[in-house]
């Protein structure tokens, strides 16, 4: 039982775990994008930079004040969420009545601007972030660091919790209704503009949260979000624009598919997600979970 389909079992398990790790970030990130797109109809191209800011804030807190990872997991999303709140309040809000492309361009521009400022202040080199959990699980076939298991578990809990919150709670019902007909929801006495602002801030905080979780795994660098966000947009397209559950399932699923491709056809690993995206667009343009319009 050391091989499966002629592949060493250790390599297979290892890549599935790596796939789940990457999938955790795909899921958390595309979840935030789905929430923002579903409710605000904004394609948030600043999401990668907001993720990077989460990691950067965590690193800065540790480097400057010695604030631990665990506090950063709470503080960094809060800080990044507040930045998102200000972005919505002072910029995005004024673009809702225009064509969607204006808000998209704004987020592209803000992303470039923030990334540039970070490079200017901290340099383009990456900063290492120490692993907060040493050791790991020694399954006879592979060794899995505790921290990686922690990331997968937290991503699952947070993404499913967010989904349940939107599907099962009263506030979630307001969000779903405001997605369909914001003006009518306002006539019920609900402050929809404030709700949109808080929703954007929450989704941005989610990106910041992902960034903190990513810091010990990847290096903290100004362009760490740039490479991730391209893949995440492909995930969102495959899952169906605006579908919360779709982004969670597709995020983890594509992470694993990518990991398995590394085992069976390593040359294709970096493009497999885009191949799936092209196939999906050809067969089912509204995505796996998309309702289609």
């Amino acid at each position, binding site marked *: 039982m050391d091989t499966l389909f002629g592949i060493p079992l250790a390599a297979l398990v290892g890549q599935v775990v790596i796939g789940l790790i990457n999938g955790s970030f795909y899921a958390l990130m595309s979840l935030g994008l789905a929430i923002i797109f579903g409710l605000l109809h904004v394609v948030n191209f600043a999401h990668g930079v907001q993720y990077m800011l989460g990691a950067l804030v965590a690193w800065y807190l540790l480097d400057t004040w010695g604030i631990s990872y665990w506090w950063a997991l709470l503080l960094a999303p809060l800080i990044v969420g507040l930045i998102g709140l200000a972005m919505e309040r002072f910029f995005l809000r004024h673009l809702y009545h225009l064509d969607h492309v204006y808000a998209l361009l704004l987020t592209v521009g803000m992303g470039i601007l923030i990334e540039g400022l970070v490079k200017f202040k901290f340099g383009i080199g990456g900063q290492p972030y120490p692993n907060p959990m040493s050791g790991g699980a020694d399954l006879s076939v592979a060794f899995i660091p505790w921290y990686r298991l922690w990331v997968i578990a937290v991503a699952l809990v947070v993404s499913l919790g967010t989904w349940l919150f939107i599907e099962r709670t009263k506030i979630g019902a307001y969000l*779903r*209704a405001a997605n369909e007909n914001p*003006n009518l929801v306002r*006539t*019920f*006495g609900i402050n929809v503009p404030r709700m949109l602002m808080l929703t954007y801030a929450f989704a941005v905080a989610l990106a910041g949260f992902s960034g903190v979780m990513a810091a010990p795994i990847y290096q903290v660098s100004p362009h760490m979000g740039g490479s991730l966000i391209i893949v995440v947009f492909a995930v969102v397209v495959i899952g169906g624009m605006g579908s919360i559950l779709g982004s969670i399932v597709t995020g983890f699923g594509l992470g694993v598919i990518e990991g398995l491709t590394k085992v069976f056809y390593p040359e294709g690993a970096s493009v497999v997600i885009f191949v799936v995206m092209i196939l999906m667009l050809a067969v089912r343009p509204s995505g796996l979970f998309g309702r289609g319009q």
Partner: protein
Amino acid sequence: MTESHTPPMLRVSQLRGFYGETQALHQIDLVVQPGEIVCLLGRNGAGKTTTLRAIMGLLSRREGQIEVLGQSTQGMPPEAIARLGVAYCPEERGIFASLSAEENLLLPPVLMPGGLSVQEIYTLFPNLYERRRSQGTKLSGGEQQMLAIARILRTGAKLLLLDEPTEGLAPVIVERIGQVIRTLRERGFTVLMVEQNFRFASRLADRFYVIEEGSVIDSFHQDDIAPNRARIERMLGL
């Protein structure tokens, strides 16, 4: 009815309303007293729906005065006007597809005391109780209309703006909605409605305003209808 001591439920004076650059309302003046059922009549495109939307704060630009119980709604967003006790049931009904019938019913928060309880609403609309688990938009047209009205009865709003509550419904359902609106008056609600079905409205409303090209051109009481029926029907293009 004197209006010297208590302010009217709704007073609209010299209202002008705009969709972008286009002026849709030119001169709307109307008063609704507490407990009245008042109906806006007029041809398609005359500005009846726009008037309701302006009162609810849904027009991008409005000028003139709108007062709810003596309080000006100048510059207020819809959510603030709702908190004065105004509720709106749109012509297209606005049932949410992503919510079940009961979630639709329970969606609007209770803003002030005096609304109906869920129990009372289900007594008034037994169909909605049977269909409560269904997806909101899977209900029949009549059930969706009932749901759209039922939904704004819990909130404590006293002034209900109903836009074409009978449009496209079978006569037996129209009759049922008439009974519901009469019940609401007995329960102390005030109703300002838009209605194309003059036969239906003439038996229900206390007073009428006729709107043409964005202006109020006439008003009359229910008692005035019988002696002036020919003139009124000509005015409405019936």
